[in-house]
């Protein structure tokens, strides 16, 4: 029996992307909520709550991108030109977001610029990632190992809807993270934001699911075919369970529950997408098998991944452990 290396790698890349979405999702969410917080002290504290971890979180995006080139070079080489504008916009957004952590504390006169860069960069990056997701769902034209579509294919009402959904979803992750990591006034603002974005996300997820069902019926076929059917049937139950934990947590003040419940919603949504896509890597023309690099490449990197990813998870967990608990307003780095 031979090991299906492309499938294993599709799983690992999916894991890296999911880790990125959840982890940098709450960092970006802080950036999205940033301009709406009451005071400068609140904004400082919100930023400090992610300052020690955002860089590690963003590295999952590099693994997703760099890993794609390594193990699915054809997917990398067709997706990125197809999504040229949103990808460049995302990179520029991430530049502003990333440097703002350091720059903001270095200047009085220019702080507004980096406040703006942090919030604007986070919003642009989130929107661009959501548009990228939507463009992938609606399909990428590929011919003769190259992107064969137009330069504005990524811009449709559907992709704008997915863009907005991801933006709101990240804001929810950010709000529940803040609810977990802060106290008093800031936690109250976070709770209000969580109610608002949580409700909005539910509506948007429903809208995305319905419109994909109408626009792309081939996905519906997949949802109701065995064994995906199993997930389709349990999905509503699991989603309701997450919502229940979320609501109880916010009402009763179990500070970590809403955050974990939101992660649960993201995982469910991500699994839904993964099931819809399989066996495509770049719907609807390139399958996992076709996009894969030769087994010698997949095996070589897999050895490293199997040794290093557990190590990475261990020391990343350690870093989170070091900065556990509520953020102390007096311990500010800046």
């Amino acid at each position: 029996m031979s090991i299906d290396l492309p499938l294993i790698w599709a799983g690992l890349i999916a894991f890296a992307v999911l880790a990125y979405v959840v982890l940098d999702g709450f960092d970006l969410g802080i950036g999205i909520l940033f301009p709406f917080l009451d005071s400068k002290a609140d904004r400082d504290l919100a930023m400090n709550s992610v300052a020690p971890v955002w860089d590690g979180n963003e590295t999952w995006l590099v693994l997703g991108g760099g890993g794609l080139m390594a193990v699915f070079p054809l997917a990398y080489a067709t997706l990125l030109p197809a999504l040229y504008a949103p990808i460049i916009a995302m990179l520029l957004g991430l530049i502003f977001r990333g440097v703002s952590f350091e720059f903001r504390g270095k200047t009085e006169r220019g702080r507004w610029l980096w406040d703006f860069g942090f919030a604007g960069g986070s919003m642009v990056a989130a929107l661009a990632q959501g548009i990228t997701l939507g463009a992938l769902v609606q399909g990428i034209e590929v011919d003769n190992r190259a992107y064969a579509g137009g330069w504005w294919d990524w811009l449709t009402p559907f992709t704008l809807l997915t863009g907005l959904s991801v933006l709101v979803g990240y804001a929810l992750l950010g709000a529940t993270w803040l609810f977990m990591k802060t106290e008093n006034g800031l936690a109250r603002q976070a709770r209000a934001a969580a109610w608002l974005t949580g409700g909005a996300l539910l509506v948007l997820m429903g809208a995305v699911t319905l419109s994909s069902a109408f626009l792309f019926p081939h996905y519906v076929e997949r949802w109701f075919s065995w064994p995906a059917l199993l997930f389709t049937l349990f999905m509503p139950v699991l989603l309701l369970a997450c919502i229940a934990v979320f609501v109880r947590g916010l009402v009763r003040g179990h500070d970590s529950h809403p955050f974990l419940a939101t992660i649960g919603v993201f995982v469910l949504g991500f699994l839904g997408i993964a099931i819809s896509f399989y066996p495509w890597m770049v719907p609807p023309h390139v399958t996992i098998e076709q996009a894969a690099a030769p087994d010698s490449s997949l095996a070589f990197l897999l050895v490293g991944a199997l040794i290093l990813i557990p190590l990475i998870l261990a020391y990343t967990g350690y870093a989170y452990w070091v900065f556990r608990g509520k953020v102390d307003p007096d311990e500010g780095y800046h």
Partner: protein
Amino acid sequence: MIDLFSAIELARFQFAFTVSAHIIFPAFSIGLASYLAVLEALWLWKKDDAYFQVFEYWKTIFAIVFGMGVVSGIVMSYQFGTNWSVFSDKTGPILGPLMGYEVLSAFFLEAGFLGVMLFGLNRVGPRLHFFATLMVAAGTLMSAFWILSVNSWMHTPVGYGVNEAGQFVPRDWWAIIFNPSFPYRLVHMVLAAYLTTAFVVGGVGAWHLLRDTRDRGARIMFSMAMWMALLVAPLQIVAGDLHGLNTLEHQPAKVAAMEGHYETREGAPLYLFGLPDDEAEKTRYGVKIPKLGSMILTHEWDGKIKGLKAFPEDERPPSALIFWTFRIMVAIGLAMVALGLWSAWSRWRGRLYDSPWLLRAAALMTPSGFAAVLAGWITTEVGRQPWTVYGLLRTSESASPLDAPAVGISLLVFIGVYFLVFGSGTFYILRLMLKPPQAGRTEIGWPTRTAGITPGPAVGRRESEGDRHEH
């Protein structure tokens, strides 16, 4: 202006611009991470707070440099796909896993421990904190290892086969990773990063010593940096020479362009200056030393050197840029050696910290490492043209099927954003560097040979009769 250029020229310019902006930060952060580890080790070992204060001084600067390196680096990791999709598809099976190892073994390590290093001292204590600093330093070096292996394979591709889809596929991973130019390039670049950092640290130390010769922090910086200049700059000349010989073996056309040689001949001269003219196929206004070119490259006075005319016209790199950037790099390298020797002379005479002209020269040379790194990379990368994978895949056949306006617009936006963001970052760094290190003062203003490492209480300004250096 966009119509004036083809999509591929714009894509090349965009890559050159973004990678040049990027390399500045790792060139500094690789060296600075190691320097921070050394400073923290000295602090823990000698229990002298002056080292900790110097550590803190550079840690703040490191955080900014590292942040700018991260965000400009993410652009690189996606730009292969956005603008060079054919290259990515064809080389992905070989270069992708190497970059994958860079992410797994280096980027996560740096990022994971950076937070602890920057914010965690009070939470984890000095020993674990030192471990975090070591991991950040190790991460930067591992990152250099993998990405230089990738780059070197593009110069000296080996260990590959080609499949039906036209992709390069791996045959021998060991040969791919340790390809022929890799060891030379790795050593040359890591030494360059260390020298770049040493000259920044030394320059900042010198600048503050010119204002206050007894500033202990500035003394520590300057003394350590000048040891690096003395010991590492000559090593770098040797490493560079070996790298050049390796290039002569594998990429003789690049060396011909570096030397401004069009004719193949025995006993070739060394051009000190000149204007290589690819159209006329000769180097104009050459100032040359007879036979020295052959001596340097073949280690024989009458050794034979191939000129550019020995290669088909469509396989020659453009020589003027290569010729000049090479000379800039070498001149800076020699100046670094000279400063190292000068500092050794001053140190031996016990006047390291109060030789104004030495301090001024060191301050002037603060950015010299960056200039040398950029010039050297331009030499080697332009010298690889017209190929992306040397001799196998042409640059003109590597790019994405993009329209010129799309690339033109993204290029303009990159230029605007980079100047704003990295210009601001550079400004903040310079402002931090203008602050004196304030790691206490030496007890006696009179500089002694060991003053830089004399433990002493951080006392306020104390005048002594022997102090000739009041300000």
